[in-house]
């Protein structure tokens, strides 16, 4: 059946901000869907609040709404745009829940909007735990024994029946949010309460645990003719009990016989038919008992997902694109396979390599968070690696994570054997106990256990990881000891590197080649053999000059295991005879991506890389993308001309450079990852495009940067540097407390802290030295109550255009990535804005920036201080681009290729008649017991944008988009530190004027009452009951304003903020934040919500 002609316009809902469990994969799928639908000639209307997405680029849709993804907003969009259909399966759980909401409210039928992709009924059947269970029973499939509950009592009755351990799964949540494993009654009660609170419909499923069963996922596609194909079976190395997003996963499935796999495939086909997803993709999870083969269905997502993005990248089958086309009436046999060109989309990919995905965690950012892995997802990103064997892919995945590990290096100093004096049994006991519960380091502990002689069988019993995977790891561990033995027999005792003698240089080249085939990085080989990485590289080069064929080769991902020719250069490295890279002799540029998402480096940087690729394509230059993050648009095979799915390490990147010989490499868009490679690449003779590595160093190096500011006559907070505790204390006393301390060369404010006194500083030094051993600690004067400014500018070396000046809402000291900000500034005077512009231009000119530059300033007492300058694409580039309607990253790429800003027609930023507010989104809800206070260490995972005619509404929208809409009425509780009381008075007065009732803790209440504000006092938690938290728990409060100073008061009030978070209440932890909230509520009470598309904003 060809495309439907009875519909002409389609509304697509995005997934909103990046949160744990919902990341860039939905930009990847949404972007594919937009492109596919536009290609078919439909009018596409898009709603997404996340400005850092490619899908919200105004060219991708006919109408783009950067507005909160809420039922109310979607209703307005529908009313304005009158789409014929709504495609809800591309925007994760968020879009699906909205679709259900709209269907329930009758909006869809009222405006005659058809749900395509999945019907409301199908969504309900798949997502409502009880309905799903019944559906499975109907088709004769087993699910773990369970019962649903809407109250604690009901839950208790269910667990009585099924016993412990039990799993609590809230309905309609994403990333397993609110899900948990309970081993006893006490844990159970806690998890039930949490689960009920987290489910948007207040329903949980209590389920018999199948912990330790093998876990599989199938990606299934179905079309209107009822054709069904399985795109890929994925097996989890970490068995049931660990969320699949936190598991190491492998494609294809490794340990199923054909009989078992076909039974699972049959089940998947029946499920998609029974649930009634009639067009598009679904993800179905199964558990298999390792000793009986018993098969149970765990869950189904009737939409594209993180796993479908992974399956797409793992096979080359573009699930979202095909799903979008199926949704408008095509059948699988009518769509072609882009990679082979000669075959159809109606087939099942088969692969001749192994894909390993590993999660990346950020527990170091959340002190107090429990790093045990459980049914609720906790990782913030992932890396995927492709190799010809599991062993090779696993080792590539490890180094793709960028966690300073280049292989299975020992966590217990066992790389050179058991150290003299160490007790093997004691060590083994320690490792065994570490393996009792799953946590992020599990695979390294497994390797260490093997080094200590623990058997595969015992490890399988301990971890429930399938022996097949364990044995593969064992092969690597055995090879390492073989290699170590060979090296030390040649005179290089690995455990004592200082005693190495040159004899080891004669290490057998065949052995080294075997190591490369097993996926060992040069870094790891250097650790194991004592041969320097550069030397390993030189030897391989010499070897291949002699025709030994021991160099790196590249193979293609082709969906079909080479049965048909692949026309898309989607490549991965391995060490085998034949290379399929076939580089062209065109002018080409290599773009280095950002690697796995982490806090501080996420979708914003991928956005910039994708724009760089688009810009180069427009200039007729071939693009080569290098990245290892399967969630991204940059790793879509049609984003660039050639895609290398590879780790972003010096070794892997240089290998590609050697093969492709690009005219230059772009490092300024992918964040810190490629930036770190700039100097090593330049040293290896690679041309870095745009701003020179020297200029980057001049901005990053403290001393050189200070000299630069002195030369330009710009002001900077007093600062110093220290390499020891004593030095730090001396410097801090000189500068005067409070001071901001941090290690050099960090991203996302890693280990950055404000310290108020010397004991705090001494404490900090202990952890900071751990954070970055080779770099000194930097100490800056902390400017209290300063306003922080972020600036993005673009320069062609001759002219600098200041594209956006953003005023932070939270004061300086809160990490810029965590702070809300307003473009244009909402309190700064025109003179100061001019001064910011002048200084930015001076900095960019002096540094010789070619491309993008981000500068951060602080304004205090009429003075402007330069905080830092980053001559690269920043996190705010997409936000500014969307706010001003200019694709900055694209322009920057063209500038780097030699175009002038004048030639590009961008010599001045447009004057805005609207205000855009960016707000950060935090993962606190995922980490029980973590405080929500903001500080210099970045903690947010994503961002949203609110855009409107005035600041108040733009701010209010940003809050709604972030999931905590401001209240219109009710009761506000205030509890602020002394320093903030005058500011709180103003806020309180304005709240009263808006009709809010106020209550405040004793000190705050007294101050307000003294100043004539009507307020009821309430007990602090330490002052007896009922107290402030009781009020929050009882639902009497609609907004919390809580600022704290000392650490003891932070601890006292943590439960207030935690409770507000749990209740989903808006809370302000800074006074500027509270003031902005008041402005938002004032605006909202003045006039109702109105929305406008980006196209209207930028063309009016």
């Amino acid at each position: 059946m060809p495309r439907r002609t009875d519909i002409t316009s389609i509304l697509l809902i995005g997934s909103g901000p990046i949160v744990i469990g919902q990341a860039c994969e939905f930009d990847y799928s949404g972007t594919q869907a937009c492109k596919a639908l536009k290609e078919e000639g439909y009018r596409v209307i898009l709603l997404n609040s996340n400005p850092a997405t490619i899908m919200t680029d105004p060219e991708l849709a006919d109408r783009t709404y950067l507005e909160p993804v809420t039922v109310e907003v979607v209703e307005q969009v529908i009313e304005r745009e009158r789409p014929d259909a709504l495609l809800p399966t591309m925007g994760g759980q968020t879009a699906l829940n909205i679709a259900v909401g709209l269907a329930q409210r009758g909006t869809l039928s009222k405006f005659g909007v058809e749900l395509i992709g999945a019907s409301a009924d199908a969504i309900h059947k798949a997502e409502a735990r009880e309905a799903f269970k019944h559906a499975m029973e109907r088709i004769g499939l087993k699910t773990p024994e369970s019962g649903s509950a809407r109250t604690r009592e009901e839950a208790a009755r269910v667990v009585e029946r099924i016993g412990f351990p039990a799993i609590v799964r809230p309905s309609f949540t994403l990333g397993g949010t609110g899900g948990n494993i309970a081993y006893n009654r006490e844990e159970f009660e806690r998890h039930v309460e949490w689960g009920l609170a987290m489910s948007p419909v207040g329903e949980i499923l209590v389920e018999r645990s199948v912990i330790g069963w093998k876990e599989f996922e199938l990606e299934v596609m179905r079309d209107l003719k009822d054709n069904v194909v399985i795109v890929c079976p994925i097996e989890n190395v970490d068995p049931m009990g660990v969320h699949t997003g936190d598991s190491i996963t492998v494609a294809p499935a490794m340990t199923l016989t054909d009989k078992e796999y076909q039974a699972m495939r049959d089940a998947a086909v029946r499920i998609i038919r029974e649930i009634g997803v009639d067009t598009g993709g679904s993800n179905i999870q199964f558990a298999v008992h390792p000793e009986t083969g018993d098969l149970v269905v765990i869950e189904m997502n009737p939409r594209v997902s993180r796993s479908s993005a992974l399956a797409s990248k793992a096979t080359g089958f573009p699930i979202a694109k095909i799903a979008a086309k199926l949704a408008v009436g095509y059948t699988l046999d009518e769509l072609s396979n882009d990679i082979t060109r000669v075959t159809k989309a109606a087939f099942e990919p088969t692969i001749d390599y192994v894909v390993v995905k590993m999660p990346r965690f950020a527990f170091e950012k959340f002190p107090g968070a429990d790093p045990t892995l459980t049914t609720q997802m906790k990782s913030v990103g992932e890396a995927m690696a492709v190799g010809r064997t599991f062993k090779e892919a696993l080792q590539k995945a490890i180094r793709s994570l960028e966690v300073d590990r280049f292989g299975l290096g020992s966590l217990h100093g066992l790389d050179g054997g058991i150290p003299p004096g160490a007790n093997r049994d004691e060590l083994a006991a320690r490792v065994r106990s570490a393996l009792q519960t799953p946590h992020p380091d599990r695979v390294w502990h497994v390797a260490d256990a093997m080094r200590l002689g623990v058997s595969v069988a015992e490890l399988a019993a301990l971890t429930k990881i399938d022996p097949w995977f364990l044995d593969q790891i064992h092969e690597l561990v055995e090879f390492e000891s073989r290699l170590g033995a060979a090296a030390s027999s040649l005179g290089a005792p690995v455990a004592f590197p200082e005693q190495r003698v040159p004899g080891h240089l004669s290490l057998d080249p065949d052995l080294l080649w075997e190591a490369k085939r097993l996926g060992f990085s040069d870094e790891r080989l250097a650790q194991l053999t004592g041969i320097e990485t550069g030397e390993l590289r030189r030897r391989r080069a010499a070897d291949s000059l002699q025709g030994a064929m021991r160099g790196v080769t590249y193979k293609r991902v082709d969906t079909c295991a080479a049965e048909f020719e692949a026309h898309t250069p989607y490549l991965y490295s391995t060490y085998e005879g034949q290379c399929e890279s076939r580089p062209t002799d065109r002018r080409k540029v290599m773009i280095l991506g950002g690697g796995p998402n982490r806090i501080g480096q996420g979708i914003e940087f991928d956005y910039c890389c994708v724009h760089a690729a688009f810009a180069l394509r427009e200039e007729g230059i071939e693009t080569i993308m290098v990245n290892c993050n399967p969630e991204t648009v940059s790793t879509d095979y049609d984003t660039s001309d050639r895609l290398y799915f590879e780790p972003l390490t010096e070794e892997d990147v240089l290998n590609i450079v050697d093969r492709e010989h690009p005219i230059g490499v772009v490092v300024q868009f992918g964040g810190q990852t490629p930036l770190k490679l700039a100097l090593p690449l330049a040293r290896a003779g690679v041309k870095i495009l745009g701003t020179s590595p020297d200029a980057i160093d001049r901005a990053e190096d403290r001393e050189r940067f200070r000299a630069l500011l002195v030369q330009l006559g710009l002001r900077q907070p007093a600062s110093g540097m220290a390499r020891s505790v004593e030095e730090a204390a001396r410097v801090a006393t000189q500068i005067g407390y409070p001071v901001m301390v941090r290690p050099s060369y960090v991203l996302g404010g890693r280990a950055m802290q404000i310290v108020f006194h010397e004991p705090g500083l001494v404490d900090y030094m202990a952890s900071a030295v751990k954070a970055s051993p080779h770099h000194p600690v930097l100490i800056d004067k902390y400017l209290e109550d300063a306003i922080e400014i972020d600036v993005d500018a673009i320069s062609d070396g001759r002219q600098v255009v200041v594209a956006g000046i953003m005023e932070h809402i939270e004061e300086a000291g809160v990490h810029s990535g965590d702070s809300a900000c307003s473009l244009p500034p909402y309190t700064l005077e025109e003179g100061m804005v001019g001064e910011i512009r002048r200084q930015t231009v001076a900095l960019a000119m002096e540094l010789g920036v070619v491309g993008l530059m981000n500068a951060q300033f602080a304004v205090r007492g009429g003075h402007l201080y330069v905080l830092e300058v980053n001559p690269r694409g920043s996190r705010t580039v997409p936000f500014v681009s969307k706010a001003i309607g200019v694709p900055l990253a694209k322009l920057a790429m063209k500038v780097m290729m030699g175009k002038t800003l004048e030639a590009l027609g961008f010599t001045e930023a447009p004057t805005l008649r609207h205000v855009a507010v960016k707000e950060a989104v935090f993962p606190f809800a995922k980490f029980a017991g973590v405080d929500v206070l903001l500080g210099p260490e970045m903690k947010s995972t994503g961002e949203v944008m609110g855009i409107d005619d005035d600041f108040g509404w733009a701010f209010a929208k940003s809050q709604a988009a972030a999931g905590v809409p401001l209240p219109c009425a009710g009761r506000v509780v205030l509890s602020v530190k002394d320093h903030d009381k005058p500011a709180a008075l103003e806020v309180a007065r304005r709240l009263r004027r808006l009709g809010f009732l106020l209550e405040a803790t004793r000190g705050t209440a007294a101050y307000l009452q003294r100043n004539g504000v009507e307020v009821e006092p309430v007990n602090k938690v330490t002052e007896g009951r009922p107290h402030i938290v009781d009020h929050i728990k009882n639902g009497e409060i609609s907004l919390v304003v809580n600022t704290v100073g000392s650490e003891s008061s932070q601890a006292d009030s943590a439960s207030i903020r935690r409770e507000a978070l749990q209740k989903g209440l808006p809370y302000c932890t800074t006074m500027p934040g509270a003031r902005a909230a008041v402005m938002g509520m004032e605006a909202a009470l003045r006039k109702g919500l109105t929305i406008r598309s980006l196209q209207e904003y930028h063309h009016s």
Partner: protein
Amino acid sequence: MKKAILVLADGTVFEGRALGFEGETVGEVVFNTAMTGYQEILTDPSYKGQIITMTCPHIGNYGVTHEDVESRRIWAEGFVVKESSRRPSSWRSEQALHDYLRESRVVGIEGLDTRALTRHLRDAGSQQGLISHVDLDPRRGVEKARTAPGIVGRDLVSEVTCSQPYEWTDGSGVWAPEADGGSSEPSRAGRRFRVVAYDFGIKQNILRRLVDTGCAVTVVPASTPADSVKTMQPDGVVLSNGPGDPEGVPYAIEAVRNLIGWRPIFGICLGHQLLGLAMGLGTYKLKFGHHAANHPVIDLRTRTVGITSQNHNFAVRTPDATAPDSTGQAMVKTPFGRLAISHLSLNDESIEGMVCLDQPVLSVQYHPEASPGPHDSAYLFHQFARMMETNHA
């Protein structure tokens, strides 16, 4: 680690490690892209005369079990894999693959660039090759490969068929396709039909699926004349899969010709090709065959697509470019009446299925019994049953 070589008749040489039985073997080198089911593949008699390359890089992961055989032994002449798992892991496993190969005296090779080999076979076509653990001289190897007998025109069927007729009574048991049974075709108790199955190299899963469908099955040797079958008075006849070139077994073509129209016939793979030849169509050798578990086949009558398991080197072709009729099916006139092309490969548009409109005959080029592979075509066994039912009435 003992070295081994694989050489092709065109002089291409791959080095690897010895796998399985120590020795030397020749055969036509083909590749199979299935990701599961290596044991079913090894024991499929259709691979007689061939050395199989698995494109999936890890083979042997789940070991072997006596339950997953498709015949009484391994028929493949040799086995080529990227990496054979040293330690199998499965609750079903009884033995490691390398031990199984050694016991079965099958010579294999691992550790070579199987993707490069596959690409070469794809571009140059499948050809004779040799695996040796004992003579690593490639020049001698190429010579042996060149002089080894090919599969064109050769009767490989006589080497794999049974010597005596026998009854088959096992069904699929717990491994019966889920899409089958209950939902579309309620399974009726008892044996409703008597079926004679020609063993041209029959896969046991064809027999199990026939039993699942309610058939009492008698398996007969390939050389059984049509008259002998007729005296057995079955309700239908199944023509099985088998190795090699259909033109190499003229006696089978003859028997088939005498059975068309007498009772319903269901042809599978080689059986389908024999039907084609018996009705006057031709066959030809494919460049590198179809050996996979992911091939899409469109049923032209319903325009629906099934993912199929395939294993053939030859295919049926219609006399000249036969234009499809309004229903999308190409119609061919044969001495037995009208023949409709019912199924086509979506990959290369080769013929995947035929139905006689004037006789109770149905055949497919692929494997509706799967094993290994998807169960999407299980419905064909029911179509055959309906055909037998209608024929009775």
